[in-house]
């Protein structure tokens, strides 16, 4: 799960209201609050840093365009990731061959696995690679649900709103996604230790 920055006292809704009234600093606060989650959500969906950069910006620009008629009864995060979900789907349709769906931009080698300095670190890097590969290999619907749950930190009901499905359907897809991940992880010692 991606650790988002700690929420300030000002709610998302209050910041949107301030932004509606022309306070651009409120938008900057919202941007800094959600940019990591949005960027990683898009990155894990598309697998391309270039596309993720552009699509993530479009997500926030979608918020800018919707601001004058923002629906305050919907949580801001739900609406934000609904925009992101729609843009990702559009991008998938635009590139059906998934030319860009390769191994996503991983962290710099120097910050990952210590460049093979020890077998333990190599094992962690292998685990991380397996996780990323397993997530990217998920069917789109399951990947949507998994990323909205784990990266965007939305509840199942909010995911149901974003994906326009029933909550039960969302949970079934999440179960399938976790079972697929389990298959990818179960050979690791870390998994066996976590089972205890």
């Amino acid at each position: 799960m991606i650790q988002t920055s700690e929420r300030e006292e000002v709610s998302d809704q209050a910041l949107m209201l301030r932004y509606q009234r022309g306070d651009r600093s409120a938008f900057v606060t919202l941007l800094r609050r959600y940019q990591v989650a949005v960027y990683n959500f898009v990155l894990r969906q598309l697998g391309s840093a270039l596309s993720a950069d552009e699509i993530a910006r479009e997500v926030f620009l979608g918020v800018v365009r919707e601001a004058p008629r923002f629906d305050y009864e919907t949580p801001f995060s739900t609406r934000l990731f609904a925009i992101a979900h729609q843009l990702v789907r559009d991008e998938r349709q635009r590139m059906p061959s998934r030319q860009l769906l390769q191994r996503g931009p991983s962290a710099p080698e120097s910050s990952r696995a210590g460049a093979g300095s020890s077998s333990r670190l190599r094992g962690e890097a292998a685990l991380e690679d397996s996780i990323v590969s397993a997530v990217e290999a998920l069917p789109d619907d399951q990947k949507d649900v998994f990323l909205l749950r784990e990266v965007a930190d939305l509840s199942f009901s909010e995911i149901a709103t974003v994906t326009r499905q029933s909550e039960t359907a969302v949970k079934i897809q999440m179960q399938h996604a976790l079972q697929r991940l389990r298959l990818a992880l179960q050979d690791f010692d870390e998994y066996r230790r976590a089972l205890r």
Partner: protein
Amino acid sequence: MDSDKFDRIVLDLLYGELDELTTAAAKRHMEQSARARDIYAHFRATRQLGVLPAHTPPPDFEAALLAREARVLAELPVRHRLGRVVSKLAGYAMRPQLIMAALLLLMIGSSLMFVRTRPALHSAVQVTERGAPEGDVDVVLPLTPPPSSSAPLAMAPSEPRAAVKPESPATPRGTDEANAGAAPDAPGQDAFEQALQIYRARGYVEAQRLFERLSRSGHTRAAEAAFYAALSTRNIKGCAAGLSAFARVSERFPSSPAAHDAVLRAARCQEQLGNSDGARSGYESLLRVPTHARRAQQALSRLANEQAAASGATP
């Protein structure tokens, strides 16, 4: 809880979205079911390990986005931009401080209609209190009794008439001036008027003191002063004390207008004290005084009527 229900809620349990009661029920079910324990353990382990590495956006992500945000704002339809302006203005308008300030200004503005500058001299109205106290309306002394040779009771040559005519320059003032040192003011006309004003202002104690002093000082209006001193006594102590005070006026200044007024006042006090015979006797004595005969006759008639009414009402 059965296995089907557990399967439906296992994800909620994994992500902490269950209420306390259902969570406890699910945990109890896991204690009894190895299958449930196994399902939950695998989900928990998968979730625990399935943490994706977080990547930060490119360094220019925020700057480039804000630059495009400004362009997008500029390209918004006019109605949306107008909506932002309206929303901004409404935000200010809805602030309680602004509402209170507007109300305050409205109140101040409306109250200015009632504020006038200092009134001009010609528009000033002066009100002066005149007249005697309510209880003494009919006490005004007959200041100008027409001297009549046919009057049955001729006034004594020493009658203090100064009260009814302006003080003559020839009036000897030696006595007043001699007694002036006893009073804070010279016991002259001004002293009498001053005492009278105090009496009219219902300062009876001070008025009694001043009138007593004037009556003893040989003032030209000593008889009037004695009468007012008696009136003050009655007002202070009541009719019982007033009777003796009025009697002293009659004794000190017999046959004077002040003495007749004192008799009239004493008779009214007798009435108030329930002594009708005493009152009637006083009124009858005034029938011979032309200046008081009419009021005495009226009082006698009233007394007779009241007596007749009282006897008629008595079975």
